[in-house]
Structure formats: structure tokens, C-alpha cells
């Protein structure tokens, strides 16, 4: 997934986990960490994303 860091503006592919590779703590956490400034944030979680997708689908159906 391509993300843009909200602090430094750097664009990167979060699936590469560049920053995580050198982090002894966060190998398997839900956070995305910017390889440039190291700001970490949550971009998506399973439950909330699933609920949002439900809403999106309904909207599309409603429009057509």
C-alpha cells in the first residue's frame, strides 16, 4: 500500500516494512512507520475497515 507520512510528507510502500526491519520491537504490529522520520500511525484495522466497506457497498448500490 502506498502511504504518505502525515509528518514529513514522504511517500513510501508500507508493505516493504523498511523501518520495521531495523526496529526490534515492531515486527508484527499494526502500525505503519515512516522510514524517513519514524513517525508511526495506524492506517487500517480489520474491524473498522470491514464496517467501512459495508457502508461503501451500500452507497454504490444506492446510486445505481
Amino acid at each position, binding site marked *: 500500500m502506498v502511504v504518505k507520512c*502525515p509528518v514529513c510528507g514522504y511517500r513510501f510502500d508500507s508493505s516493504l516494512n523498511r523501518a520495521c526491519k531495523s526496529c526490534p520491537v515492531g515486527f508484527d504490529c499494526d502500525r505503519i512507520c515512516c522510514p*524517513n522520520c519514524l513517525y508511526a500511525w*495506524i492506517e487500517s484495522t480489520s474491524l473498522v475497515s470491514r464496517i467501512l466497506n459495508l457502508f461503501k457497498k451500500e452507497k454504490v448500490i444506492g446510486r445505481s
Partner: protein
Amino acid sequence: MNRIFAEEKDRLINTAPVILVGNPNVGKSALFGVLSGRYVEVSNYPGTTVDYAAGWIRIKGEKLRLFDSPGADSLSPVSEDEIVTRDLLILYPDSKIICVVDSKNLKRGLVLLSQLAEFGRKVVLALNMADEAKISGVNIDTEKLSKILGIPVVSTVATQRRGIERLKEALQHAAIPIIPVDYTGEISNAVDKIENRLRGICHGARGISLSFLSGDNGLPAKAVNLLSDPDLNRIRQIKTRLESAIAEPLGFLIAKRRNDSIKSIIDRTVDSGKTVGQRAFQIIGQLSLHPLYGIPVLISILIGIYYFVGVFGAQTLVGILEENLFGGIINPFFERIFGLIPIPFIRDLFVGEYGILTMAITYALALILPIVTTFFIIFGILEDSGYLPRLAFMVDRIFKKIGLNGRAVLPMILGLGCDTMAVLTTRILYSRKEKMLVTLLLALAVPCSAQLGVTLGILASISLSAVLIWLAVIIAVIFLVGYLASKVIPGRSSEFILEIPPMRLPKIENIAVKTLMRLEWYLKEAVPLFILGTLVLFVLDKLNILILAKKMFAPVATGMLGLPEKSAEAFIMGFLRRDYGAAGFKNMFDNGLLDPVGAIVAMVTITLFVPCIANFFIIIKERGLKTALLMVSFIIPFAISVGAIMNLVLRGLGLW
């Protein structure tokens, strides 16, 4: 296949096509539709999941192939769409490009344009959505822009077919844009070297060199196939060498240089008229960057956090949930239900003094949830408003001025991260002294702003002065980390902000989604540990070890820290998770077991404690038991000594 058709296709492919290139959502497809008319084929780009459209464009009776590339923000590709866009350009080296940009966001478009220039492509710039730009008061001096860039610039509104004929006309004058970017010495040298090896193999050697340096997908398959193995190794070597010489990701530095030169073009050609509200935000944005006025802005934000998280969240909401809902309705209900169970062990496990429902779940949902929710809302607002880059910039400037490493403390201030060590561990450390310092930093600076937020909220419900004292200690620790970091990683360039976005009013739905996601993450991480902590206390209590532990800990708790014996419980909880420990102290304070001084001392000590047992285990896994134990053997005495000193000072001052 029909031979004549195939021949014609060949002939057409040999005539230079026109390619539409642009950022996502700038009305590129609409423009494509207008330019190509009815006949459009959509094909899948081989080897990808990306579709692109192809059609025909008629210019002065001549029929040319027209391609619509997938949306791209950069030709140093990060996404598959961007790879396809870049490859289309390489596949048709003689094509002319219509670079479509959103007039409201010229900057984003010019980033792409400057890369087209590096690829050596002939371009016409289409300033699309010109009508919307006009409405939002953005005025672009197209003539001047055209003169500066050396290419035709045409305003268009694709949806209303405006500017289309002029765009077609302009295609004949397409030229390579002039956007000089000053890549500094080392990068510039590396680019030249790589470019030399790519020239003659691939069109757009300079663009490819830069995008190769920028990221992982920079080298197109075509170039990889055509390069000889020694040449390929050589250019990879150049990149590796450059990467090890520079601390920042190369992609970041290259983007930064590009941004700088684009900014000067924007400044000369764009007048972004603003409404009163936007102007107000702009002024706040500028103030927040000012070395002096930035401080009152920061203080007002902190006051805002205090009232929203500390007063509204930790007092009003917690009051409703903890006392009324859980204390008055939910827990009595469960106590009655479990009261029917004749086995006291089971009853206590769920609703006893250390019960999963009455302690773990009540703390998590009634005490911590409201605080952390308000904290996440504030954090989302700070993130979306564009304040965080400003705060980062300001902190970095202050630290730089006093010769400390500001970047190392940023994750601690901003981050929800355990990331300080990421900076440190990327560097190979040689001496024992360096390793010790790193260990110390790991111990001190394992941050988690969510945990800090909870602690802050709980303190706020005690008193404002408690917050201020606690804050002073945290700031002192931050400075200590910055000082130590500058010893370990000296001379690290602290240029790390690509662009400072304009301040803007965040959208409520975005904040809501962000807050929900952070809550889900927090609850998933925290609640299991809360339950585990409660179970530990429950078992220790049943085995009569808890009372022993309290006795053993008494000299430290009562003697040094001036806290009641019961505080051992909160420290055990705090060893599992700092915020859970803080909740324990809050509970003691509410029940009159702690006085205000005791509460401050306890909170400061727990803040400096091991942040979270899960992290601790991973540190053991990744860095070895020895380092982990070393950490703990530093942290715990350090935390307790700070607490003891605070106890002496605060009680000595006799302010309470």
C-alpha cells in the same frame, strides 16, 4: 489475425503516440474521453493488474494513437499504477505527453512534470479543472508559467470540453520542460555516473537514474534486461555506496530537492486567493513555525488537550462511565449473577477484588477508554490539520540550536511508536560505550503516546499542578534522550521534512474513522494485557504471595516513595502495561489511599517504568536477554530514584 490489419497496426505503432500522464483524480479520464471520441479500448498492461485505455486522437487530419496512463504521483514508482505509467513512457520513447494536472493543486502536478523533464519527454501541460480553481480563488499566471517551463500551458475544463482545441494545437509545440533541480554534490555525481551507463540502452536515462536511486522499483525491466551484468552490478554499487553515506532515505532527499525548486516556480506563478477562514488558518500555520510565536500556539494546544482529555475525558466521561454505569449498574448486575455460583474461586475470578470483570474490564472500558478516545480525537485533529509537521519542525529547531539531536526524540513526542531504536539500530555501533548508550536510550525512550495520553488524562483528574510537574519530568527526559542521542549519532543531518502542508480544517468523518481505528488497535493491544495483569494479581493473591510482595516492596514504596503498601499492586500492573498501572493509582487516589503528592510521585515513577511487557519480550527476542535485563536493571532503579527525589522535593516544599 488479418494481415492488412496487422500491417496497419504496425505502421500506427511506429508513428509517435500521445500519452496522457497525470496524478490520480485530476480528470484525466474525462480529458481522454473528450480527446479520443468514441472508440476506446481498455487493455490490461501485461504482467500487472493495471488497466489502461487506448484510443485515437485527430490533429489536423492526422490520426494519432492516444494512451491514457494510470494515475501517478511520481515516476519513481511506488505503486503498480506508477510502474505501468513509467513503463508506457519507456515503451514509446518518441511519444508526446499531455501532462494533466489539477489547477487547484499545481504543486503536485509539477512534481510529476519535473520528472517528465528528467525523462527527457516533450510535454504540453494541461491545467485541468480550471473552473474549480477559479471558484476556490486560485489564480495561475499561465503565460508566465509557460515561459518559465518552456512548454505550452493550456487551461482546460475537460468535463465542459473547454480548452480542448487549444490543447491539440499546442501539442505541435510540445517541448522538454525546464525545471532545474539542484541535487547536491554526492547525489548529482551518482546520477551522472548511472546515467552514463544507461545512455544508449534506454531512453530517459537521467529520469531512470534518479528513480533508480529513489526507490526499489526505479529500474525498469527493459533496462535490467539490456544492461550487462558488470554494468548492473556497478550501478547497484553506486547506489549502495551513496545510501551508506547519507542518513536519510535517498528517495526522500531527491524528492526534497525537487520540491524546493518547484516551490519557487509556484511562488512566482500562483496566487492562491483564500477565504477568511483559510487566511486565519494560514496565519496560525505561519505563527506555529515562528521561533517565538510558535510557543504560545503550542501552549494553547496543550491547554486544549488538558481540557478535552484531562477534564472532559478523564473527569466528566470517566465519572459517568465508572461511577454511574459500571459502578451503579453493570458491576452490581454481574455481582448478583456470579453470586449465584457457589464456588468462591470462580466468583472471585470474575467479580472479586482482582476480578476480570470488576477490575480488568472496568478499568479498560470505564477508565481508560474515555481518556484514550478523547486523546485519539485530539491526535487525529493534530494530524489532519497539518500541525504535526510544524511541531516536528519547531522541536527540531530548538534541539538543533542547543546542539542536541531533535530527530531522535520526535518519535517520543509524536509517535505512537517504539521507533527510536529504529534510528539507532540502523547504525552499526562499535564501542562498548556506544552500545551502553543505546541501551540506555532504549530504556528511556520506548515511547507510546497512547500510554502517555492515558497517564496525562489521569493526572489531569488529580490536579493541574500534577500535570505540570509530570510534564516537566517528561520534558527533562526528552532532553536527556536528545543529549545522549547526539553523543551516539553525531552529525546526523536533521533535514527530514519534505514539505510543510498548509494548515486546514480537518474533516469530521476522517477524524472519526482514524479515532475508531486507533481505538480498535489500542483495545486489541491493551485489553489482553489488562486481563493478564489481573490474573497475575488474582493468582498471587490466592497463593498469599501478594501480601508477601507488598511487605518486601514496602521499604521502597513507603520508605523511598512515600506511597502506601497497596501501591505494589499498581506497580505489578504497571510492569505489564504502564497505562494499566496508572489506572491502578487513579483508583487508589479516588479511594483516598493516595494524597496528591503520592499520586504525582507514583505517576512519574510509573511513566519512567518499563512501558509494556510485550515490548520487553520482543526486545529479549531481538536483542538478547542480557540487553533486556540490562535495560530493566537500569530503568527500574532510575524510575524509583526519580520518584524518590520527587517525593523528597515535593514534600520538602510542603506545597500540599
